[in-house]
């Protein structure tokens, strides 16, 4: 008797756990010839709500962690991905990539994590400044994480696109809730399984699968989300996030980029998700001693 293969149900990632969607709904994903690939969770707004709560409670611990340790953890994610390279390549090929393209996408994703792990304890001094002021103050500006970031991940690049946005976000001490690619979601959930086994504290990266039609307005209007990064191309959706995001003066930004380009490895993406805090620290009259800051 021929064996019937077990079709995997891809779950979602909330608060360090991999639960099923609260709604109990799924959508089938099919491969090139219409063969069924997997059942993918169709997340509801309540999953989103729970994910934001998880991201918020993880925020203090993650941003307060030593920068160097955040770098170590990002590097650990890269290590764990390296170990599951074959699975990632298989999944990308199932979703329509050629072997060469899939291999390239996986290695670039790993490299990108290594790249941002290096920046974890370096962007502060690169972007922080000591400012000249005319009064008796030591005046300096330092970047601080924006907080909870909602990410609508790129649609066409299921793994590399996702990693390229999540890495600079968490490298900068933010926590995030990600809506994965709708038609290429498999690697995002496998990525969540990697995160769960690589020292990343629960709640730092929460990954949902589902549709923007159902979830985008809740991402954009949620009062406890501090920034929204939108990586797709729909003009009406871009307009709506700006309008809905105004409710809590959320930072909304559209990142439409070719994620396969090396130029997407840059610290300025990390800086986009930072707030600059300037401190005026009173000091003695420095003019008299001739010192200058």
């Amino acid at each position, binding site marked *: 008797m021929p064996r019937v293969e077990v079709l995997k149900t891809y779950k979602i990632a909330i608060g360090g756990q991999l639960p099923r969607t609260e709604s109990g709904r799924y959508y089938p994903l099919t491969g090139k010839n219409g063969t069924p690939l997997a059942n993918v969770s169709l997340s509801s707004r309540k999953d989103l*709500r729970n994910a*934001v709560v998880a991201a*918020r409670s993880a925020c203090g611990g993650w941003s307060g962690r030593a920068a160097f340790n955040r770098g170590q953890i990002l590097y650990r994610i890269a290590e764990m991905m390296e170990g599951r390279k074959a699975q990632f390549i298989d999944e990308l090929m199932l979703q329509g990539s050629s072997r060469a393209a899939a291999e390239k996408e996986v290695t670039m994703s790993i490299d990108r994590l290594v790249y941002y792990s290096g920046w974890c304890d370096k962007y502060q001094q690169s972007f922080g400044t000591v400012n000249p002021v005319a009064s008796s103050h030591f005046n300096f500006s330092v970047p601080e994480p924006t907080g909870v970031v909602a990410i609508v991940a790129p649609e066409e690049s299921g793994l590399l696109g996702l990693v390229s946005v999540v890495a600079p976000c968490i490298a900068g001490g933010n926590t995030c809730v990600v809506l994965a690619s709708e038609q290429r979601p498999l690697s995002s959930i496998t990525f969540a399984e990697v995160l769960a086994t690589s020292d990343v504290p629960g709640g730092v990266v929460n990954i949902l699968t589902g549709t923007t039609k159902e979830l985008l307005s*809740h991402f954009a*209007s949620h*009062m*406890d989300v501090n920034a929204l990064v939108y990586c797709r191309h729909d003009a009406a959706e871009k307009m709506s996030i700006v309008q809905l995001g105004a409710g*809590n003066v959320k930072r909304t930004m559209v990142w439409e980029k070719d994620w396969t380009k090396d130029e997407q490895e840059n610290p300025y993406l990390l800086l986009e998700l930072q707030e600059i805090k300037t401190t005026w620290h009173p000091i003695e009259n420095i003019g008299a001693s001739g010192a200058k800051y």
Partner: protein
Amino acid sequence: MKNSNALPDFRTSPVVDHVGIEERVARFTTRSIKKASKVQALKLALNMIDLTTLEGKDTPGKVAQMCYKALHLCDQLPGLPTVAAVCVYPTHVRQAKAALSGSPIKVASVATAFPSGNTTREIKLSDTRFAVSEGADEVDMVISRGEFLQGNYAFVHDEIAAVKEACGSARLKVILETGELSTLDNVRRASDIAIHAGADFIKTSTGKIQPAATMPVTLVMLQAIKDHYYKTGKMVGMKPAGGISTAKLAVQYLVMLHETLGDAWMTNQWFRFGASSLANDLLMQVAKEARGPYQGKDYFSND
């Protein structure tokens, strides 16, 4: 010939079916409460809160701020009730009473060497009298868990009765500290003792011991209240305290209350939540229903 004034034998309190209680509780959590009924439940829960600060570091400033919060839960949301009471240490009662004068909000005070209760009866009674003389409308006492666990039920009973007498017209809430009683059978027995000794309310916990209030423990206590009501026709109140911090959980408690004791108990005269962070979560859910988007903590006062 049986002496009708003698204490009942508390060893014969009903034995609790642990599995049955868990199953029953699991069902309460599956009720679907939406839209208008949800808003009503949220507002009722707000109205049942004993807003509490019971810390060694309490200051007059903290108490003043909490009393202000009790009066102004969220002025941007019209039609909100106030909380039921504020709950403080005896030394802060006078201040809280003054801050809340003219409002329907009661002042509750813990007494009897809260939270351990490890002191002499004399001190417990004078602690109670002090709280009442400062103006407390309600007194939250702790039972002597050590004596209870040794089987000295008469001691525990008499102590509660003595504190009840010292309370005068103030209502007495008896804290069983269920986290230290180990079994549901003990919880049931302690509930029976407290009710028989004259408690106006029975309360789960001090909030200082984990686990604090849980739904199974609360259900066992509600059943003790129900049995007492059937036997004597007298109502006793219930106050779960500690660990109830989300609106969803609070609504599940209300479901349990309604399905165990019924409509008559669905008021802050007979049911309270001892909580501090629950209020904000309830407010966020009320605001969500009123405004649409999910709310964030940043837009609600801390305490």
